[in-house]
């Protein structure tokens, strides 16, 4: 039996080897890159890099009665945010600061900032402190998986550190608008803590077009619902020093 051995040029062998490696690695890498890029685009579409905004927060009880709070907020970069309560009178002047995973609450009567935790809620209802002082999703979460569901992407996000309020998120992203429609928030035990619903797109000017309502409900608060209504989002230059404990009593001056 004659065995014919075919000799391939070394360049061809190397090219085939590289192609094989690329075939094995590229799909995974492409998914990771796409997921991260999509998440960053979602952040970009939800908020400008540095801005001020006005929000109304409504807690809706099972009987339909409501309690409303109005907040003025400023955010800079991925990790700095301050919110000031403008209404009601019982909360007026309270301000909260977030720097990365650190959060503080300033109450005028108390006269000094107190460290608070992200899972607490300064307003009651379903929104906790990390919802009110939310940083960019891409700053807090890595994309663990991405899949497609019709007109939506499903991003499965995993918290970068244990100090993030929710251990994992399932985020449905509208493919065309590249903004979230629904986000399910889970504890490390896998328990669903709450679901966020982004609604009612609005043109805020200056190229900012995004949902103007964020609703939430939670199996932990059956029958209760909370909503955040965004009335004004404007790009604004801010000094880093605005995001410090010493400035917390003076946030009103930024308006």
């Amino acid at each position: 039996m004659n065995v014919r051995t075919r000799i391939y040029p070394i360049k061809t062998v190397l090219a085939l080897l590289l192609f094989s490696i690329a075939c094995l690695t590229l799909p995974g890498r492409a998914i990771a890159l796409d997921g991260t890029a999509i998440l960053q685009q979602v952040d970009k579409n939800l908020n400008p890099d540095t801005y001020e905004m006005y929000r109304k927060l409504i807690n809706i009880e099972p009987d339909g009665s409501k309690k409303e709070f109005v907040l003025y907020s400023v955010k800079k970069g991925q990790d700095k945010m301050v919110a000031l309560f403008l209404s009601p009178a019982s909360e007026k002047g309270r301000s909260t600061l977030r720097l990365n995973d650190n959060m503080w609450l300033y109450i005028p009567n108390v006269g000094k900032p107190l460290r608070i935790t992200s899972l607490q809620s300064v307003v009651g209802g379903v929104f906790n402190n990390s919802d009110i002082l939310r940083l960019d999703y891409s700053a807090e979460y890595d994309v663990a998986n991405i899949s497609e569901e019709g007109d939506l992407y499903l991003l499965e996000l995993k918290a970068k550190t244990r100090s993030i309020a929710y251990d994992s998120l399932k985020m449905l992203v509208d493919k065309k608008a590249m903004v979230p429609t629904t986000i399910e928030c889970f504890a490390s035990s896998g328990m669903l803590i709450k679901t966020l619903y982004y609604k009612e797109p609005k043109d805020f000017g200056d190229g900012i077009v995004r949902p103007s309502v964020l609703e939430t409900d939670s199996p932990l608060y059956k029958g209760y619902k909370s909503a955040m209504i965004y009335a004004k989002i404007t790009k604004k230059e801010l000094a880093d020093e605005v995001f410090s404990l010493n400035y917390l009593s003076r946030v009103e001056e930024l308006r």
Partner: protein
Amino acid sequence: MLVTKVSVLFWVCMVSCGGFLLPSLSLAEDYSFNLDEFEKKAYSLGGYAEVKGEHCWINRSGAFGLLGFYDSPRSNLDRLTTTIQLDGNLNQGIVDFNWLLQAFTQNDQHESNHELNVFSAYASIKPAPSVTFEIGKKTFKWGKGYAWNPVGFINRPKDPNNPEEALEGYIGAGADLIKSFSGALQTIALTSVLLPVWEDVNEAFGEKNNLNFAAKLYLLYRDTDIDFILFTGNSRSTRFGIDLSKNLATNFEIHAELAYIPAQKSKVLNSLGRLTTREESVTSYLLGLRYLTETDITAVIEYYHNDAGYSANELDQFYQLVTDAHSSYRNTGDDSLLRQATTISKSGYARPQAGRNYLYAKITQKEPFELLYFTPGMTTIINLDDASYSLSPEAVYTGFTNWELRLRYSHLDGGRFTEQGEKLNEEKLELRLRYYF
């Protein structure tokens, strides 16, 4: 870039079609938001009005019950207090004027009292976000502790039973500088205060005719708040402090304070029952935590050691002095020893927590049984040296916008010749209604 353009186009189309879609959406919930009423004004006014009724069961055999009611003994006291607090701000460019006023009237079967206090009234000049100059009367609340602040060298002492209430300030001038960085050191801030003590100016602070200086250097370093605090001047002796606080988890915060006073003067009774001045080096500290459980129970727990406090034996000596003075009054009708004991009590023995070692715990449960805006809680303060304690269950309801209703009951005990066992009240029931405007 393409994705951005597509997304903007999509939303513009959606908004354009909004005329058809939005009315039906907004009918589902009323999400109207009129920003006009929140436009910034050159001035702002606010505050609260409060009515508080108290029923006190007097500790008739306790030292402070004897001092307070030796000439008109009574077993209970009903007190009605009405308070109005007004705060405001006037802004003119880089200058702000801030004020906080409080007026109250208090009536019970024993006495009536009314006062108007200027808690703060000061001007701030802010040439840049990182620089502030202030002059006037301002309240300082330095330190990380919730119930006590051993490093609060220019603070007014707060009531651990109501640590979140406003306090009167001191007249002075100060500067505040802030600098932010990226990296392990995120913020550095220096606050410095000149605090004079002259005739009719800050007289309660310490010795007169002195200009005092206090400074606080704040660092946010590796996600930890750290303050280095210094006070020097002749109204009070020089003192040094450090405090810190840090979040260990999303539901767990720790804090601590340490104060060192090389030469602290305090008044203490000697073996002859005479008041003498003691000077010693003291180190006081506080260790605390704040923990939130999965069931929304918040616990604030603090341990406080105060080297400058009285030992259990020293407090015993004072209680014995009062008991002896009262026996003398009963036998002779002469109250001079009791009046002398009252003067001695004001030198430090009547302080809310006059001892050396305390444990504070406040536990609150947010909205149990799905009762929204209802927060029951329990506060205890234990004197660890004599095992006396106060226990105060309470319930707070904030369901009506701008109204707050608080019901609180306090029980104090520990037996004779213990700190809590010798207090004026052995029990107290309090109902407070507050309206914010």
